[in-house]
């Protein structure tokens, strides 16, 4: 199964109901603090050549209906993010892109982001268990980090997809979260990355390392 995943602040979308009711949208998850994650599915993802370098462009040129379908797909994706497209200043279809082996994550926000340096490892998108290590300023977790991590864990528990074994465990100025995941771990890891990168609460996290198992 291939799809595009979006992690957006809720002021980037028209409304949650429209999003949830869209025929191609699945797995809408309300993340804490105004963030939303959703998957966008489309028949084009079933094409084995989809976006393959050197093949896809040629195929689209050869098959006009395929090109039309791709444009329609992009227009659908973009229409869901109309408020963001109306106000964004930079080039591109997201403020940040993360790619896992499962899907690309497009992250969009209309307010400043203080992007954390993320160190993903192979397999981070579909792991059953993973450990996130946050390198923060200071020896104890900044209050904002603890709170955001707590809300993230609670959200995961509510959906029945994520089980965080313990809260932030401090070690040598780093803070660890151990979690078990039923669905795609990438959704939760990318979601936490976006949450902690939101500049509104000054998480103070500089780097986020991922380890599997």
């Amino acid at each position, binding site marked *: 199964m291939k799809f595009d995943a979006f992690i957006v602040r809720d002021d980037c979308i028209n409304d949650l109901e429209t999003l949830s009711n869209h025929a191609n949208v699945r797995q809408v998850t309300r993340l804490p603090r105004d963030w939303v994650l959703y998957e966008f599915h489309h028949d084009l993802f079933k094409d084995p050549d989809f976006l393959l370098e050197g093949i896809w462009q040629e195929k689209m040129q050869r098959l006009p209906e395929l090109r039309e379908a791709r*444009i329609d797909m992009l227009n659908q994706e973009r229409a869901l993010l109309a408020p963001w497209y109306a106000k964004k200043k930079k080039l591109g279809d997201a403020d940040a892109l993360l790619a896992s082996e499962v899907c690309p994550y497009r992250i969009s926000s209309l307010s400043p982001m203080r992007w954390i340096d*993320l160190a993903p490892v192979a397999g981070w998108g579909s792991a059953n268990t993973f450990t996130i290590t946050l390198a923060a300023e200071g020896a104890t977790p900044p209050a904002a980090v603890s709170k955001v991590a707590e809300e993230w864990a609670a959200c995961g528990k509510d959906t029945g997809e994520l089980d965080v074994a313990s809260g932030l465990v401090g070690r040598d100025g780093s803070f660890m979260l151990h979690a078990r995941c039923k669905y795609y771990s990438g959704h939760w890891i990318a979601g936490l990355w976006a949450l902690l990168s939101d500049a509104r609460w000054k998480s103070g996290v500089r780097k986020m390392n991922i380890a599997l198992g």
Partner: protein
Amino acid sequence: MEKRGEEDEYCSRVIHAQIKTMGNFYANVSVRTVNQAALINALIELKRTAFVSAERGGWIVAYDKQLELAEPEEAETLTATLSGRLSSVAVAASVYDDDVFWFCICDKGNHVDRYNSRPDYFEGTSSIPAGGNVRRIAEALPLHDAEQLVNTVLHERHYVVETARHADLASALDLPEFSVGFGYKYLQRGELPVSLQGNDLISVVPAGQ
């Protein structure tokens, strides 16, 4: 609404890059010196990881790895230290997500001026630029007839992309063009300024790494 032509190619590049943010993120320090060896020695003594450019027009640029994540205070400390050790002028500049342009100037170890295009950016509020006193800048760098231009670039002109402000300032101050748009991370992944060849860069790594 039709897609931009490069979109698909962009997606495939992202799969390799893993992470991509849309605006430019970079930081570097330009030092007014022709003594590349002295700058490299200073960086080694400070245990920094960096790329150091060849000298062009009396300037050498250090693309320091830690500088890209540094808070302004740390960046100013490094700039003042390099400026002091080289007994010259050093200009640190950074661009955050093409939303914020920051620089500081030090002369012989002394702070001259600092500037931030959006000091309240992370508060989520709009604000006017802070710092960037043209008279102070002129004390360290000969501005010739560019004083008004520098003031316009720093305080009057609106930039959608802050790298463009950096480029205009670099041009007005005669800083090397390869100080604009490049930092350690970009160079490490193989991007190279047009005016530099690969062998124009020297990699500095602390002993034991």
